[in-house]
């Protein structure tokens, strides 16, 4: 288990040391492949917990780790082409930072200790903030500052919440520990007002990291200004591990008997996120910011599923995987379009389907997937969440959910169609930035995966999702 954490870190050190600009992206590829190999070995071998129970490959980790690993590998391949095109910018910090990010995300997924979880999440913020500034423009600097400040603020509040939870267990009969196993075993022995207070702060803190409304203010700026590659990893990987952190908190709350309170809060915030995303998606003029609001929407869907519990929670686990992969498609394709036209604005970009014969249609297909069209996999995960809502008699929740999904479909569709359709002559063009196999192949592969998962979901994966939902107390 240490291999998957330490291998990317070692390669990050290598990347910092290597002086050659051209060779450095290979470290990314090597790190990604090693990580993927390690995760596959872990999945097959089913190892026992290590470090005294601090790290364990439990069902939640099984959901998120493979997806993160695959996403990173694909992005690493994309990075070869992307960084070669951006040879004028020093990529030392970029490559090293991404590898450290991979390691930190792995720790978050595996961690069974709330303190270690917190440290790793803070590390994801710190290691990605400088990367947003890769463009070295005033706008990306502003985005990086807002991201750094808002996320650090949220994480500090999450630390307070973690301490509250520890305090809840600090009484004479309590577990006096931050290990999930101890906390869930203690159950109702945990002091109730402190568990609630802790949950509130942790929801605010980790919700900021995920990008749930109303804590999402950094997302449009950060995702809008970051390179497409980083956007894919942030919206596919980092938000997913933020969700895992939140799920672990819910795990503790359910064991302590506070699940009703926690679930209501999650459902509320989930619907609020979807509503806000719907409102801001309409008339969005920058297609990368549009993707950020799509991320807010999907985090809302995840929170909603987790809050509803049961089959919906299992659907939320499935959706974590789907969202991650689909966001990869969207951001990488959007990155290609941005680079080819030199602009992110909808009024300047049109006809992407003709100028970029792979990336353009990919963007359109990605849009269809992310808004839940069959036969892509997000349809099935979103459907099971809807099923869960209606099945437990929550008609209002289900109705609002459908309504927001439709509004988002319309809003996003208008923007995407404007970008993809039409005649590209007359639109700004950056020379030598068409589709190549390195830049268009990876998102195509991810889309294939999304399609595959939609058409055929292996039974073993379904069992993992159900086990993860049960772990959280669904």
């Amino acid at each position, binding site marked *: 288990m240490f291999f998957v954490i330490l291998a990317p870190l070692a390669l990050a050190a290598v990347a910092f040391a290597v002086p050659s600009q051209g060779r450095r992206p290979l470290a990314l590829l090597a790190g990604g492949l090693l990580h993927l190999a390690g995760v596959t070995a872990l999945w097959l071998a089913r190892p026992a917990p290590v470090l005294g129970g601090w790290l364990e490959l439990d069902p939640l980790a099984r959901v998120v780790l493979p997806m993160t690993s695959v996403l990173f590998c694909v992005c690493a391949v994309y990075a070869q082409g992307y960084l070669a095109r951006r040879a004028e910018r020093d990529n030392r910090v970029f490559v090293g930072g991404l590898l450290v990010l991979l390691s930190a995300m792995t720790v978050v997924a595996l961690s069974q*200790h709330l*303190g*270690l979880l*917190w*440290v790793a999440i*803070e*590390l994801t*913020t*710190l290691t990605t*903030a*400088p990367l947003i*500034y890769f463009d070295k423009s*005033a*706008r990306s*600097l*502003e*985005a*990086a*500052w*807002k991201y*750094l*400040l808002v996320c*650090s*603020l949220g994480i*500090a*509040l999450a*630390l*307070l919440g973690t*301490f*509250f939870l*520890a*305090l*809840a*267990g*600090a*009484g*004479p009969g*309590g577990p*006096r*520990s*931050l290990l999930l196993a101890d906390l869930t075993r203690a159950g109702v022995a945990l*002091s109730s*007002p*402190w568990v609630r*207070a802790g949950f509130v702060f942790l929801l605010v803190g980790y919700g900021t990291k995920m990008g749930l409304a109303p804590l999402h203010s950094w997302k*449009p*700026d950060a995702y*809008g*200004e970051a390179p497409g590659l980083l956007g894919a990893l942030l919206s596919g990987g980092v938000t997913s591990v933020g969700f895992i952190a939140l799920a672990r908190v819910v795990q503790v709350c359910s064991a302590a008997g506070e699940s009703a309170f926690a679930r209501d809060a999650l459902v509320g915030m989930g619907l609020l996120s979807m509503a806000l995303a719907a409102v*801001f998606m309409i008339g*969005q003029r920058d297609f990368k*910011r549009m993707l950020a609001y799509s991320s807010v929407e999907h985090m809302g869907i995840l929170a909603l599923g987790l809050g509803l519990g049961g089959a919906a929670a299992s659907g939320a686990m499935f959706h974590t995987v789907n969202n991650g992969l689909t966001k990869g498609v969207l951001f990488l394709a959007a990155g290609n379009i941005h680079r080819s036209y030199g602009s992110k604005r909808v009024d300047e970009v049109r006809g992407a389907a003709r100028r970029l014969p792979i990336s353009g249609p990919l963007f359109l297909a990605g849009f269809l997937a992310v808004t839940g069209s069959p036969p892509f996999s997000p349809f099935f995960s979103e459907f099971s969440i809807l099923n869960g809502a209606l099945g437990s008699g929550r008609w209002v929740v289900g109705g609002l959910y459908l309504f927001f999904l439709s509004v988002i479909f319309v809003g996003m569709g208008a923007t995407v169609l404007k970008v993809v359709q039409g005649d590209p002559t007359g639109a700004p063009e950056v020379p030598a930035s068409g589709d190549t196999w390195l830049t268009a192949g990876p998102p195509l592969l991810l889309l294939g995966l999304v399609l595959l998962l939609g058409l055929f979901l292996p039974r073993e994966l379904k069992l993992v999702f159900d086990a993860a939902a049960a772990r959280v107390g669904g």
Partner: protein
Amino acid sequence: MRMSAWTEMVFILVVVLDFFLLASSRLKAVIRAAAAQGALLAVMPLLLAWHTTELGHVLALSIGALVVKGIVIPRLLLWAIREASIRREVEPIVGFIPSLILGGVGVALAFAFSSAMPLPTPEQHAFIVPTALSTVWTGLLLVVSRRKAVSQVIGFLVLENGVFVFGLLLSDFMPAMVEAGVLLDLFAAVFVMGIVMFHINREFSSLDTEKLSVLKD
């Protein structure tokens, strides 16, 4: 004075420093006050836990916190304001006097809240929770209402101070690694913020975050 009277004095001094941070506009004074607060809090584990057996671990934590919060981070911030040649905070979004009053109200509420929520470990000092919450509230006010980037970073530092106070409640069973990790994260966060501020100053020739408002919907 008894040992607990000294600790009470330290907590009260921490809250008084909170008020000073909210009211002052001189950046050097604010940085020094935040450093003093951090140094005071670094001494707290020794005052609270001087009778336990793990003196070595407590001492290490205190010295680490003192160095990071009291020396390294203030040096970094003083360097930042020297680089950017700024000395005063401009009138913040929530003015100085309303900030001070809001801070006072926050402190009162923190004391009220903490007497309503009983501690599972009642043998700990009664002022820890209200002081922690007051300092967190002060830090939050500073981050949200100040315009200069340096002041926002100081707000973040003060917020972490407040969380640190709260962590003192758990010092007897929190593993050393997590505490060290928290301290390291604080240092790393402020370091990264310092770098970004350096770039902001270079790009905009100012650390006024009013200039960072191009991105919006």
